[in-house]
């Protein structure tokens, strides 16, 4: 449940910041440019108080919304 809410919130934040990006895509990373990647890192860092850096901005972590959700959850657990 909490994860569904977090996923909804992530979609809401990223939709507002990246209106051109298809967040439903399973190839999200390929849709992003450098600004898109950085925007995602910045928004998630601020929203969840986590530290994200270049090492986190991998095609695997940004593959789709579910992957992004797992990355955030992993950071929060730490």
């Amino acid at each position, binding site marked *: 449940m909490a994860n569904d809410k977090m996923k909804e919130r992530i979609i809401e934040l990223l939709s507002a910041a990246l*209106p*051109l990006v298809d967040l439903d895509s399973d190839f999200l990373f390929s849709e992003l440019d*450098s600004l898109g990647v*950085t*925007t995602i890192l910045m928004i998630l860092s601020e929203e969840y108080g986590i530290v994200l*850096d270049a090492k986190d*901005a991998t095609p695997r972590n940004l593959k789709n919304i579910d992957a992004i959700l797992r990355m955030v959850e992993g950071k929060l657990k730490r």
Partner: protein
Amino acid sequence: MLLLDSIARFARQKPDNPAIITATEMLTYSDLHHRVCERADRLKAEGLREGQPYSFPATQDADFIVTYLAVHLCRAFYPLHTTGTTGASKSVIISDEAWTANAENLIDRFGFTPDLLFIICGPLGHLGSLSKIHPTLMTGGTLYIMDSLKDLNAFFKPFKDPPHPSLKGRESFSRFASFLVPSSIRMLLQFAREELAAVAHRIAFIETGAAPIAQHDMELLCEVLPHSRLFNTYASTETGIVCSYEFSRYGCRPGVVGKPMKHSSVRIGEDGRVICAGTTLMMGYVDNPEATACVLVDGEVHTADLGFIDDDGMLHLLGRDDDIINTGGYKVNPIEVEDAVSACPLVRDCICVPDPHPVLGTAPKLLYVPAPDCEVKPRAIAEFLKARLESYKIPLFYESVEAIRRTFNGKPDRKAYKVKG
């Protein structure tokens, strides 16, 4: 054609030295020279004539550079596209002499050497990246072409590994340099500071430009790269590379772009605008003598930049005297955006204005009045514009409003929406 003569010379003297490296290939100077000559022969056979502009897609790879150099060898021109000085999209012709002058300006001020690996992560079709081909190859150095800075980790790959598998076992590069727009610097400082610090001793110089850089970012970069030379450069497609300021040496002062370089001079017009002279200036706009005559007057380019020159001869920039939105170094004409939006059935009225952005500095924002009885999602407007505008021109921010403020004569009141500071 100093650049091409230099490539030919290195092809004879150092044929196996790397000239261009990308993710998928490496061209030695011998390879490069051979391919450029072959390409030039083909272009001539296809009808390319001396003095003719020749446009082709600016792909981010070695093949673009090969064709670009071949066009030069044919004594034709590769026109650069710009919104820049005049506000409307145009194509600019830059002479071989101007390209050489640009290169000599850069070599003289920054120190390009044969052992330098110059990392290009911006679009090759823009002056910021394209202008670095000349000084790097004229001095026998190596160009490392990245797709973009989307993968920040990729920026550090050439520092860790041999930049190309065929270079394994050879002495690694000792000096690295790059041109990074301020937003790219911010991205690296925010998300890859440790990695940057780890390679600091190998970075000879970093040049920035195309947009204002914040004092905080300059200071942080100096802290992370204490031994590198850091420059803030003033340039445009129309003026070429004109001034540069070594903020790592002389202090982090926002808006200061330093003294004119070897082949350039600047003065301030009566209206406070920067006027540039020298051998780096454009020849003119393709098929647009009227626009050329507005900007290129008596051998000087009249820019839209406001500035002043201090007692030390340093140029200070104060912003633009027009409505062009500088978004991360790209120039966006809001009228072009508004014209594109006007065809969208979802929107009755709109204005495109600059809005602060934490990475880009400024980004275009669209204030829109929805069409009657329409529930408009920004995504729908952005999708509509995607088919009509280059991606950097599509507004990042959207706000639905009840009305657009207009002046007494009905024009959008841009001053009322201008970002302060």
